C-alpha cells in the first residue's frame, strides 16, 4: 500500500526513477559480460543469442529497454527542470517520459520479432 502522503504523480515518477536506476545498475554488468563474450568466447555468445530469441526473453528485453528509456527520459526531465527555468507542467512531462519510454521499448520489440 502506498501511504497517503505519497499518492501523487511526481512521487510515483521519483520511485520509478529510483527502481529503474537500481535495476539498470544490476543489469548492466551482466550486459557487458555478455558483450565481452564476442571477444573471448564467440561460440558461447552465439548460443546465448540463440537462447535470447525466445518470445519470453524478448518480453523481458522489452522490460529492460523500457527501464533504460524511462530512466533516460525521466532523468532528462529532472535535469531540464532543475537546470533551466522551467517550472510548470512537471506532471505532464513525467507522464510523457513514460509514454516516450513505451514508444522506444515498443519499437525495439517490433524490430526484434
Amino acid at each position: 500500500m502506498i501511504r497517503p502522503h505519497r499518492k501523487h504523480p511526481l512521487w510515483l515518477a521519483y520511485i520509478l526513477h529510483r527502481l529503474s536506476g537500481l535495476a539498470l545498475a544490476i543489469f548492466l554488468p551482466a550486459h557487458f559480460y555478455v558483450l565481452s563474450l564476442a571477444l573471448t568466447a564467440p561460440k558461447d555468445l552465439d548460443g546465448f543469442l540463440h537462447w535470447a530469441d525466445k518470445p519470453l526473453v524478448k518480453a523481458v528485453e522489452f522490460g529492460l529497454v523500457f527501464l533504460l528509456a524511462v530512466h533516460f527520459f525521466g532523468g532528462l526531465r529532472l535535469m531540464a527542470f532543475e537546470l533551466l527555468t522551467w517550472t510548470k507542467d512537471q506532471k505532464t512531462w513525467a507522464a510523457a517520459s513514460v509514454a516516450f519510454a513505451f514508444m522506444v521499448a515498443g519499437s525495439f520489440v517490433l524490430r526484434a520479432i
Partner: protein
Amino acid sequence: MSSDTKTLDVSVWRGDSAGGKFERFQVPNQQSQTILDVVVWIQQKIDPTLAYRYACRVGMCGSCAMMVNGEPRWTCRTHVLKVIRDNRIEVAPLRNLPVIKDLATDMDPFFTKWVKAEGVFHPTSSRDDDIVKVNPSSDDRILADAAIECINCAVCYASCDTVQGNPEYLGPAALNRAWTLVNDEKDGKRADILDAVSQRGGCHNCHSQGSCAKFCPNELSPITSIAGLKRETIKSFFKGR
C-alpha cells in the same frame, strides 16, 4: 464525501517520545467543523490532558499542523467533510519531527535548519538610513514574492521523504526561505546563503518528489525554489564565485 451520521469516529494519537498509540473518541458531527474544532472538542469535553498546539485559527500562524488521515494538513483550515473517510478521522502528530506529547511536536530541528540554511535576513543598512526602494516588477522580486508567503507550518517538512531518510537534510521550508533571500536585493550576504545551501544536507539532496508543493497549504512550491537554488549554486560553482 457526505457524512450524515450524528457522530464522527475519531482516532487520536496519544503518547510521547517514548511511544504511544491511537485512542478512539466519538465526537458530535456538526456543520462547518474543522479538524482543529474536533481536537478542541475532545480536549474540552472528554479529556483535558490532550496536548496539541494552535493560536490563530485562521491559517496565519502555522502552529496547528498535524497528520490527518495520513496527510499533513493545517487543521484549522481543513474541513471535516473534505477529509473524512467512512465517517472516520485519524489525527496524529506531524511526521519527521520528535513528539513532545500527543499531537504536539518539537519544532526545534525545523527552525534550527532555517538558521543553518542562512534563512535569516542579513541587513545592509540601519534605521538611520533612508529606505531603499525595491522595484516590485524586477525579475528578482517576482521570484522572491512567489515564495514569500510561508507561515512556517512544517507541512512540507512532514511530507518530504528526503527529510525522513536524511536527518541532516535542511528540508523544503528552510530552503524555500533561503531562495527568497537569494533573490532579495536588500540582503547583504547572498553569496553566503548559496554557500550554506550547498553543504551536506543542502539543496542538492532534494530528489524532486514534489510532495512539498502538493501539500503546502499556502500553495507555495518549495520544489521550484529548490530547483532555483540548485541552478544558482551550480552557476556560482562554475564562475568560481
